[in-house]
């Protein structure tokens, strides 16, 4: 746990006083202190390309009255700097008056340990693993022309001081291990990427030579793509594999169910609460409470304990994801979804681990039922236009389906669909729900936060596939 005050002329008492004084006539707000230590070690092109370490310390001071948010942040934790921020907040809100809401729920549950993953493994042992990965893949096959592998780890300590002196703290470990391999055969080049991670020590993820599994998966994806043919273009049936393809749900549905877009009525879902937005059998939750998952949080960045929020239950829209500001303005309570990338950013309602729950059909049945379509197993990034509801994502591993059978692999193509209607096109939900391997980062308003996704195999009756073959 970081002590934010021991090397500063600012005492905790001073900080409490400035916070309470600044927020006196405000509806909400807090002082958020953050200390992040992070490292990244990268092997590329047969060499350790970079080995870097970063230490980032700072505060973000927020005052809210009505709908107006005043924010000021600095990386200098001092009396002077906090006072300057305080004046800045006061001047923005000077003509407004609110009543501070002291209510904040508490919980003793923790979803990860207070560890520092950076210090639990020596630099040399990390370098050793990266070198083993490189050798293993290059020995594996002549077609391997490039290997990139990396470790990234961080420990983020936060402290939230609310008006009246209430203090909330959290220590968050996060690691990621990644392998990317490029193959070249008969003049064609293709890459395959795979990674794992979460809120545990590196060794938890690397036990039992698990790094080999990651290598094999990256190699397999690249090999499949070497044989890929141009993707078809046009509307067709799409079977999505389990796990990471749930990025579709994240983009298509998840963002549109974040509180801010609905309060501002810019989301296509803002007037659909209680209505049927998905086929029967479709249930989607956003869960911050799964042990050690990348998207899990003990408390969110406003101090609210996270929870499992039911977004869609059996096709019916049940809840939006809320931070304190949007919850207050929409007359509901925070779902523990208030997040920020770091102290430089304001809190926004964000996803944690977004999951579609299992149904009772099998992937085999889905494939069999498709005359012409595609089977998408893995994706790169996705994006959504909240207002029009249109979303896209890019296949990194996909196959043609012809007459109920899986055919050749196809080149990376973009799939495009309409968020509010896509879940109504889901005609089968599989019994094979799977979590993603722990690699997701979600971007919103220039802020990236770690997230998770999960889903079973699903059959979508109609989506546009953006290939080149007509």
């Amino acid at each position: 746990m970081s002590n934010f005050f021991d090397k500063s002329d600012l005492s905790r008492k001073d900080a409490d006083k400035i916070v309470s004084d600044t927020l006196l006539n405000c509806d909400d707000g807090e002082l958020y202190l953050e200390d992040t230590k992070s490292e990244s070690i990268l092997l590329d092109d047969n060499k350790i390309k970079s080995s870097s370490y970063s230490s980032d310390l700072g505060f973000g001071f927020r005052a809210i009255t009505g709908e107006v948010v005043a924010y000021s942040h600095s990386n200098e934790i001092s009396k002077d700097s906090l006072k300057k921020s305080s004046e800045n907040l006061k001047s923005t809100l000077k003509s407004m008056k609110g009543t501070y809401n002291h209510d904040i729920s508490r919980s003793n549950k923790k979803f990860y340990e207070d560890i520092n993953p950076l210090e639990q493994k020596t630099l040399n042992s990390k370098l050793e693993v990266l070198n083993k990965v490189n050798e293993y893949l290059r020995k594996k096959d002549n077609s391997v022309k490039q290997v990139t592998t990396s470790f990234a780890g961080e420990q983020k300590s936060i402290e939230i001081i609310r008006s009246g002196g209430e203090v909330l703290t959290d220590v968050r470990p996060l690691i990621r291990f990644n392998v990317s391999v490029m193959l070249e055969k008969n003049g064609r080049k293709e890459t395959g990427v795979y990674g794992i991670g979460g809120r545990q020590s590196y060794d938890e993820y690397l036990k039992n030579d698990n790094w080999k599994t990651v290598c094999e998966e990256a190699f397999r994806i690249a090999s499949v793509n070497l044989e890929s043919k141009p993707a078809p273009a046009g509307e067709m049936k799409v079977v999505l594999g389990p796990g990471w393809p749930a990025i579709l749900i994240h983009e298509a549905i998840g963002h549109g169910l974040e509180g801010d877009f609905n309060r501002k009525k810019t989301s296509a879902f803002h007037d659909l609460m209680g209505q049927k937005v998905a086929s029967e059998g479709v249930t989607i939750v956003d869960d911050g409470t799964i042990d050690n998952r990348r998207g899990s949080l003990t408390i969110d960045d406003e101090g609210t304990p996270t929870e499992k929020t039911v977004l869609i239950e059996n096709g019916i829209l049940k809840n939006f994801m809320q931070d304190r500001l949007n919850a207050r303005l929409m007359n509901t309570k925070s779902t523990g979804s208030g997040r920020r990338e770091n102290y430089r950013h304001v809190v926004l309602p964000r996803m944690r681990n977004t999951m579609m729950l299992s149904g009772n059909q099998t992937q085999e049945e889905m494939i069999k039922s498709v005359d012409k379509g595609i089977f998408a197993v893995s994706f790169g990034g996705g994006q959504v236009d909240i207002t029009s509801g249109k979303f896209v994502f890019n296949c990194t591993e996909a196959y043609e389906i012809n007459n109920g059978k899986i055919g050749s692999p196809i080149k990376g193509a973009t799939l495009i669909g309409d968020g509010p209607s896509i879940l109504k096109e889901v005609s089968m939900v599989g019994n094979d729900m799977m979590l993603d391997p722990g690699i997701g980062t979600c971007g919103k308003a220039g802020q990236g936060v770690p997230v998770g996704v999960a889903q079973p195999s699903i059959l979508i009756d109609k989506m546009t596939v953006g290939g080149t073959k007509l």
Partner: protein
Amino acid sequence: MVKDQEYLKSKASYCLDLAKKLGATGSSVTVGHSISETVNFRNNTLDESNRSDGLAISIETYLGKKRSSISSSNLLDDNIKTLIEKCFETTKNTPEDEFNSLPDKELLAKEIKNLNLYDETHFDNEKKIDYLKELESVASSEEKIVNTESSFTENKSNFILANSDGFCNGYKSSSFSASCVTVAKDENSMERDYEFTSKRHLSDIKGAKELGEKASEQTIRKLSPNKIGSEKISIIFDKRIAKGMLGAFAGAISSNAIARGTSFLKDKINEQIFSETINVIDKPDMNKGVGSQIFDSEGVKSDTLNLIQNGILKNYLVDTYNGKKLNLKSNGRCGGTTNLYFDNGKISFEDLLKINSKHIYVTETIGHGSNLVTGDYSVGATGFLIENGEFKFPVNEITIAGNFKDMFKNITLASDLDFEYSVNSPTMMIEGMTVAGK
């Protein structure tokens, strides 16, 4: 006030001295300070104010051919000392890489040309609020506009880059930017669009009225879109999308991608990759240029590069490390391009629209569908159907796909280039791409 050069220099030399004392054979350090103030409006009222004050330091230490780096936002001498010790410890334990090196001394920038990148004017929050009030009242005046969000940001920064070979330089820069996002609604649809302006000097930004009008007009015309069938059709890219092609091109000619062999443009120097009419230039010394720089992030002087001349690839973007690997000299592009643009074509915008009887005019793309290893391109798009030179109706939920190798050879440019951003393109037509729709 943004910290002055003296303060930043003293921090930088403290670091270099310390690294030397510890036994580093070389080191380089960047110290920067940046202050920015943002005001956001929503539906004609104040929504958010945000003040950001940030110091940052990054240090690289060398022991022969061994190298590692650290960065921090905490500039207390105590903390810096701990970090440099840690950095050098890591350096010692990192394997050698024969290409690791500080930049060649003779390539370092000698003189600091004044490019007018700093405007000391302070546009205080009250003035920002006045600007946004006017902007939003214009943007929301049409009945179909149901939501407006706008923002004004003023940024001032200063930095010093110093290394153990005696380089020690830096300069102040500023930016003023305003943006407006509008949402329009009719009985069939809800659509969003935007307009944006960003300049080094306050007096050069677009007026509030112009910005608001444009955002509103661009959003309303997107209402009630149709989906179209799948076909091969020529595509016209609005300037704001056309410049994205340059982004992909720049990624593919970065010396990093070339040295690693992961670019579809590897080994294409002196080959025809665009049609003969195309020229691409990267010009670092534009007066007040949004992407202007005097030297790159290693201190290497950057000169104007003709990247594509009459369709032929003439240069990669080279930094020190990858340059040594490729046996090329750094051309001052560590950190990428500066002011990158396609030279004007010979045909007017109006005539471009009439080249074919039918086009798709793309105003927005979504998704990350560029694969720089294979050149494959596939993204979601919205825009308009154009027939006989006239805008017919808005189109959405389509994808456009092709391969850069073919797309680059089929580009026709209009003659309407202007320098709004750091990457700029005239309106662009590409033939032979596939649209997937219904």
